[in-house]
């Protein structure tokens, strides 16, 4: 045996993981504080508060929230999968254009869409009733857009793109051989759709439906506008109007519990469902001929585009045109007190942008840890970072009001609290994007860099980071997009005078100044289209 001359260095592997573990752990703790705090407050809310709420509000809120959630989730699932199937798998006329037009309503916040539709359809003074009145010469009653039916209709109209995009991606990744095999076993198109295609689609569908469900639980603007009370709007009222924090905490606790149950259910389903796989022999399945159904299908898809995209955009454009042609209105649009519309836009952009950068940066140690040390510990950390999904904007706001007041009083009343709320709420999107980006690169890539003399730190910056950058950008774009649209948390947490586009549109519209709100709303939609189109390009739906 040879006597060693010297040991050139002594680096136990554990030190590397410890640094990363600490970073990932801190992020997990940071993002799970609001959740824990809400539960502590909810349980410690006091029996009298619980009893009072149980006797009065809790049950009706529960029924309202759950029926709306069920109706909208079911509606978006049917509409989303249907549209995805029509544009991806059939010979629908104009499908290549529809493919991306149908995704664009994602850039329109649901409450802005609801403002437009409400202005059109409201029983008294709505444009459509007025027009019908003029047409037939006497008042015509049309179904009221307020309440459950209206809220379901508008939320389905503006939330279906989640399901549409994710199930569309699943349709695209299906191997043609799957369909062919089914046909060889004697199944017709219809049997193949139900027996093979849709089951294989389930992961994409459940992921999309989950996003919708959690979005409805968190939705404030639309339901408040349409006077349909859910947990989110009730908590908002408690916080802003009556300022009853214990009642708000109890309601928040119940709401978060519902969200966690939904999330848990999805994670359980997801665990078993990973059948979309691309191999080198992958090819597109040939489109299915719609035959006589081509025209009705075309009509259906066009009317969805019309209601969810063309109507909101053209009404907003018309209002904006009105505003610009009136000197007084124009100056109201451009200035609110000492601030201009550019200030609002700037506030929107920097707060959402900072939130995106922070969320992606914080997600990196979590994703890296999960990849390098897969196991129970990293799974717990990853799951904790998903808690943002279960935190509606109002709940984040409530818990930040309480926590920041106590622990970080110097932050209170600054716009940074708003940014923190965005980060907490949208962290899961960033974590998922970073984890997905990391799984795209083979571990041998990093090992190659190590064997060519780079430390793990250098390897990250010279090899890993450049390779995952597009994926990180996508995660950032998603966080930016959703932060831009975030309404309740901004409304509740913003310091006096910190107006974003979303906030200004909401306040003006609530006061009935539609024409005044329209240019800001268009600007907000425009700002959302940029990250959205980046995301859609990555999805490659333009093929």
């Amino acid at each position, binding site marked *: *045996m*040879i*006597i*060693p*001359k*010297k*040991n*050139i*260095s*002594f*680096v*136990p*592997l554990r030190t590397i993981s410890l640094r990363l573990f600490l970073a990932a752990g801190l992020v997990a703790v940071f993002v799970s504080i609001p959740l824990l705090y809400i539960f502590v407050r909810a349980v410690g809310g006091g029996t009298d508060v619980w009893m009072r709420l149980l006797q009065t509000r809790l049950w009706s809120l529960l029924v309202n929230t759950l029926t709306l959630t069920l109706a909208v989730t079911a509606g978006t699932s049917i509409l989303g999968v249907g549209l995805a199937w029509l544009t991806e798998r059939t010979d629908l006329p104009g499908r290549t254009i529809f493919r991306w037009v149908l995704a664009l309503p994602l850039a329109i916040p649901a409450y802005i869409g609801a403002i437009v539709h409400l202005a059109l359809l409201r029983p008294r003074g709505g444009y459509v009733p007025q027009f019908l009145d003029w047409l037939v010469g006497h008042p015509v009653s049309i179904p009221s857009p307020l309440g459950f039916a209206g809220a379901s209709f508008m939320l389905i109209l503006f939330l279906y793109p989640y399901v549409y995009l994710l199930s569309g991606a699943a349709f695209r990744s299906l191997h043609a051989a799957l369909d062919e095999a089914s046909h060889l076993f004697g199944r017709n198109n219809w049997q193949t759709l139900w027996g093979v295609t849709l089951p294989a689609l389930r992961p994409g569908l459940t992921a999309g439906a989950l996003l919708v469900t959690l979005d409805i639980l968190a939705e404030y603007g639309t339901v408040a506008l349409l006077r349909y009370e859910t947990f989110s709007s009730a908590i908002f009222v408690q916080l802003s109007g009556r300022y009853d924090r214990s009642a708000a905490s109890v309601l928040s606790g119940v709401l978060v519990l519902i969200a966690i149950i939904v999330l848990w259910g999805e994670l359980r389903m997801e665990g078993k469902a990973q059948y979309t796989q691309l191999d080198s022999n992958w090819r597109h399945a040939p489109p299915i001929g719609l035959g006589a159904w081509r025209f009705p299908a075309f009509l259906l898809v066009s009317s969805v585009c019309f209601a969810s995209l063309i109507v909101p955009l053209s009404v907003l454009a018309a209002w904006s045109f009105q505003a610009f042609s009136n000197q007084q209105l124009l100056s109201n649009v451009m200035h609110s007190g000492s601030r201009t519309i550019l200030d609002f836009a700037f506030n929107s952009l920097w707060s959402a942008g900072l939130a995106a950068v922070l969320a992606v940066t914080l997600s990196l140690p979590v994703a890296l840890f999960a990849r390098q040390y897969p*196991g129970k510990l990293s799974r717990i950390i990853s799951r904790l970072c998903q808690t943002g999904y279960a935190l509606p904007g109002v709940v984040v706001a409530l818990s930040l009001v309480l926590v920041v007041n106590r622990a970080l009083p110097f932050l209170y009343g600054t716009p940074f609290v708003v940014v923190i709320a965005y980060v907490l709420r949208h962290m899961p999107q960033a974590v998922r994007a970073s984890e997905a980006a990391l799984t795209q690169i*083979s571990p*041998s*890539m990093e*090992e*190659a*860099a*190590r*064997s*060519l*003399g*780079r*430390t*793990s730190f250098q390897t990250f910056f010279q*090899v890993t980071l*450049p*390779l995952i950058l597009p994926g990180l950008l996508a995660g950032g774009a998603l966080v930016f997009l959703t932060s831009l649209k975030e309404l309740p948390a901004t409304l509740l947490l913003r310091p006096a005078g910190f107006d974003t586009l979303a906030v200004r549109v909401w306040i003006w519209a609530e006061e009935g100044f539609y024409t005044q709100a329209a240019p800001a709303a268009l600007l907000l939609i425009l700002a959302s289209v940029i990250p959205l189109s980046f995301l859609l390009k990555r999805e490659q739906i333009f093929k």
Partner: protein
Amino acid sequence: MIALEVHNISKSFDSGLSAAVSNVSFALERGEIIALLGPSGCGKTTTLRLIAGFERPDEGQVILDDRIMADRTTFVPPEKRGISMVFQDHALFPHLTAKQNVLFGLNKQPKTAAQEKALGMLRLVGLEHLSERYPQELSGGERQRIALARALAPNPVLLLLDEPFSSLDADMRVEVREQVRAILKAARATAVFVTHDQEEALYMGDRIAVFRKGRIEQIDTPQQIFHAPNSRFVAEFIGSTDFIPGEVVEQGIQTELGLLPQFPELPNGTKVEIALRFDDIKFTPQAGSKSLVLERQFRGAYNIYRLRLPTGSLVHAMQPHIAFFKPGTPVQVSFVSDHPLTVFHNGMAVDH
């Protein structure tokens, strides 16, 4: 001059995702190429990763050029070992051109020297003209050679190759492996080469270590491994081998193909197995014989016939490409008696 010494290394995994190794030892002369050969899950890749420093051994030592890389108290991280590796998927950095990939390991040299060295390496692998291409723009074989150039550029003490040809199409594999062996020998590289393809191991390795279930079953020159396998497993794994039963008697070994004049040091009456390769038996048609031709496999330059012996044993025999026999032809089968055959008792080779 010994370049690499591996002493009794063991490694096990809780997850079961990687194969364990136990008590693996071997040494490697400078300029030598050793092939680690075995079926998947036998621990050969784990051994390679232990040498590279991507895994830390539970037990044992890795010594490189007289310096301890890993033992109970020492662990040198991979970037400080001076080892290079060619990966199964080549692992070329997609954001760098071919030349930048080769330059990646030369970052500690002065710029002009590094440039010259990189160009020299590209010339060595014959891809100088493609130096500005990105990996996605190269064919599988070209990527393979760039990966090799990148690994050789920093003058590694040791080069590791992890199934480097498995991602290539079968028709390219033979050509590329000839080029790679020539390049390795021209660069006088010391290399450890992992493969599950016995033909590749026989061609590439100066020596071959056959792995089985985390242990080395036999380590020897290709010729020795082929002609004198020390276990039934090695004989079966290297080259297509048939086995027929035999019994030790006074005059040699009695088999259904007749008496084999070999004298193992075993008591008379002991049951043994005899390994038969295509060229170890011959046959001629003979009416009334109980051995039959089952099938002919035409291999171009020769024919392989599958035969059924009277006891039901199946064996393969080689015949010239012009020798045609119909299935069902009764034949007389006998040993080719120009060299001794390997005899196994309880799965292990016996001396004779």
